[in-house]
Each structure stands twice: as structure tokens, then as C-alpha cells.
């Protein structure tokens, strides 16, 4: 296996403010981090800012203040460059699949890299086989089950072989077996991974865990300690809150 290459996913004092209907809303505030672990998991409540944090690194969200670096690239200034480094998998597969059938969708990802059409179809089928979806290749993506669709979206991103994988809640729609299978697949990939998740088993498999709460990165460290703390906070209230 090739020596795994690591990019630094870096934030310094990053604040993200968006316009809501009732004036500006702060979605992230004063975030400092540098993720270089092979797999980093971000956990936090609904609406705490996890997806926003992940989106910073490929320029889908731009910071209102502060510095973001993906590798050495400023994704706000050079989104194309940042995006060629980072493959991003959305939670909601329906918003990521662009073509009417799974096969065509993965072929779209391969377009740039593989010129020959037959070869492209071959490789796309190979990806579908890897995820156990070969018999769904020609179905309309709108007839697939939720989990099947999530796997297609993942395959489409893996097919471009980016340096860094950013996955926003990649297991939410998956069954137990596919969750285990996805874990194995991720374990076998050479890429550095940054993921957000509510699946604490998946988070436990990371090398580094960050906890986001109410727009702030409130703590980070080794998975055991962080997940213990997070569970505790979920049940008894986060720091500065009364019990839920």
C-alpha cells in the first residue's frame, strides 16, 4: 500500500454567520482546530454546526472571519483547488445523485479520469459491485431504497479517488450489516477521513473526536474520553446548561 498522505484540515478562529429571516445567525463561532488524524469524527447535537464545519473544507461554506486551510489551500479563495483534494459525501443522498441511474451517476464521476467509454462503464460497475449494488445498476435512482441510495452517493465520490474524504453522517440510512461493511470499506481506504456522525460506534472507530455544541468546538481528544463525555452531556446537560 502507498504511504498514506495526510493533509492538514485547519481552522483558526473561524466564525460563520448567515442571514436568517430574523437577522444574522451565528452558525459557527471561534473554531480553532487542526485535523491531521487518519480518521476524525465530529459529534454534536442536531443543529450544533457539524455539517457547517465539514463544509468549510471544500468551500461549500465560506467563513465570515478567520482562516481555513485544506492542505495549503484556502478553500474560500480557491474552491476548485480545494474540491479537487476533498471528496464530500452528503447525508442526504438524494441531493448528491445527479444522474437517473446509479451506473450513469458513477460514470459521471469517472468522466474526467477515464476517457474510454467501455472502460468507464467497466470501472463504474466494479464500484457498484464493491458496494453490493450491481443488480441495481440500471434502476431509476428514485426507485432505490434510502440505504441503497446512500451507498450509490458514496460510490460516486469514492470513484474520483480524492485525497481526503469528508463524510457527513455516512451511516444514517444504513442497516447494521451495511454499517459494518462501510466501516470495513473506510478502514481499507488509503484516504484521510473527516466525518460527522450520530452513530457513536462509528465515532468510536476514529482516531480523534471533536465535539461541537451550539456553534462552538467545545472539546476534542481521544475517542474514548470524548464519547464518554458526550454521552454524559446528552443525558445530563451540556456544560453551562441545566439538566435536560
Amino acid at each position, binding site marked *: 500500500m502507498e504511504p498514506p498522505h495526510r493533509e492538514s484540515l485547519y481552522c483558526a478562529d473561524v466564525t460563520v454567520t448567515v442571514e436568517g*429571516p430574523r437577522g444574522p445567525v451565528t452558525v459557527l463561532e471561534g473554531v480553532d482546530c487542526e485535523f491531521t488524524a487518519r480518521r476524525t469524527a465530529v459529534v454534536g447535537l442536531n443543529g450544533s454546526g457539524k*455539517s457547517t464545519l465539514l463544509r468549510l473544507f471544500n*468551500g461549500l461554506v465560506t467563513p465570515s472571519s478567520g482562516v481555513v486551510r485544506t492542505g495549503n489551500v484556502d478553500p474560500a479563495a480557491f474552491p476548485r483547488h480545494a*474540491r479537487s483534494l476533498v*471528496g464530500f*459525501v452528503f447525508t442526504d443522498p438524494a441531493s448528491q445523485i*445527479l444522474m437517473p441511474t446509479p451506473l450513469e451517476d458513477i460514470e*459521471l*464521476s469517472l468522466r474526467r479520469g477515464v476517457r474510454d467509454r467501455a472502460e468507464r462503464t467497466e470501472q463504474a460497475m466494479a464500484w457498484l459491485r464493491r458496494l453490493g449494488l450491481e443488480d441495481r445498476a440500471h434502476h431509476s435512482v428514485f426507485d432505490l431504497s434510502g440505504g441503497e441510495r446512500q451507498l450509490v452517493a458514496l460510490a460516486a465520490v469514492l470513484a*474520483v479517488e480524492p485525497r481526503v474524504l469528508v463524510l457527513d453522517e455516512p451511516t444514517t440510512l444504513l442497516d447494521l450489516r451495511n454499517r459494518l461493511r462501510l466501516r470495513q470499506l473506510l478502514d481499507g481506504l488509503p484516504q484521510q477521513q473527516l466525518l460527522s456522525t450520530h452513530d457513536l460506534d462509528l465515532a468510536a472507530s476514529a482516531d480523534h473526536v471533536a465535539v461541537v455544541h451550539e456553534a462552538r468546538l467545545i472539546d476534542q481528544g481521544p475517542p474514548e474520553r470524548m464519547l464518554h463525555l458526550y454521552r454524559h452531556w446528552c443525558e445530563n446537560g451540556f456544560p453551562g446548561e441545566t439538566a435536560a
Partner: protein
Amino acid sequence: MRRRARPRGDDLLGTYVPGTSPLHRCPLWLKALLVLGACLVVMTARDWRVSLGALALTAAAAAACGLGVRRWVRSLRPLLLLVILLTAYHLVANGPARAADVVLSLLAVVTLTRLLISTTPLPRLIDGLVLLCSPLRLAGVDPERIGLAVSLMIRSVPWLFGVLTSLRDAAAARTVRPHPVQLVTPAVIATVDYAHRTGEALAARGLE
């Protein structure tokens, strides 16, 4: 589903702002008549002074109702390009008076309707429409269905404004860079999918 899409057109047609001003409390039929009448006057009187007057009155009324004039101005931003094009065209073709009239009456009509929409909750507007359509019962049409169709339509506009943006994000996220034209088909397909999900939700909630 594409909930991340924070649509730019979200606020284009206006949304209800809760309040207790006279306009909020005014009966819908009276408000509607006033607004409709004013629109008719503005559009038929080809005089920029009339339009300017109507615009000023609307702005004053909006301020009096606590609607936050600044937010209004911001929500009109999507009109900017259109206003520039119209101004330029009419300046050259028909002179400054006509240009001012066209642009001012456009703005007056838009803000007048927004005034109505911002001070009346959508269900009340739909109730009014259903009432207006009730004679259609004789023709075998259920006015409630018309009301439902209109509210679904209004709900869908902001989603549609966001769909191209979210597809561009989706493509960017997987490092492919399709030409915007290549995204038009996925956008329409996503639209049909959205309609299907809406239909399922309607059926599931027994709203047929």
C-alpha cells in the same frame, strides 16, 4: 429534502410577519380590495408621480406595521438586474419619464402585494381564496383543493430557487464540474422527485 438549500428566492413573494398593527387586524377583503385597487391605479396611470406616491405610501405603511423596511429592501435585491435592464431600455427607447414610470410602478406593485402577504398569515389568504372560489362548487370543483394547490405552489417557489445552487454544490462536492447547462436536466428531475415526495406526503396525511 434538499434542506441545506437556503434559497435566495425564499423571501421573494414575502412571508407573514406576526404583528398587531391596524393592517394586521384589517379584514382580508378590505385589505385585498385596497391593494388591488392601488395596483390597478398604478398600472393604468402612466405617470411616474402616481407610482412614486404609491411606493412612498406603501413604504410608510410597512414601517408603521413594524415590517422592518431594511429587510424589505434586501428582499427586493433579486429585482436589481431587471430594474437596470428596464431602466436602460426605456431610457433609450422612451425617455426618462416613461423609464421612471415603468420602474417605479413595478416596485410599487411588488411592494403593495408584499404588504398584503406580509401582514396576512398564509392560511388566511388561502381561506379568502377558497371563499372566493366557492361558487365553483356548482361546477363540481372543490375550492379546498384549489386552496391547497395554491399553497403548495407558494411553498414550492423558494425550494425551486434553491435547487440549482444545491445541485452545483452536489457536483462540486464530488469534484466533478459539469457545465451549468448539464445541471438543467438534473434540476428538472429533482423537481419531479420533489413533486412526488410532496404527493406522497399529501396522500399520507389524508389531504386528498
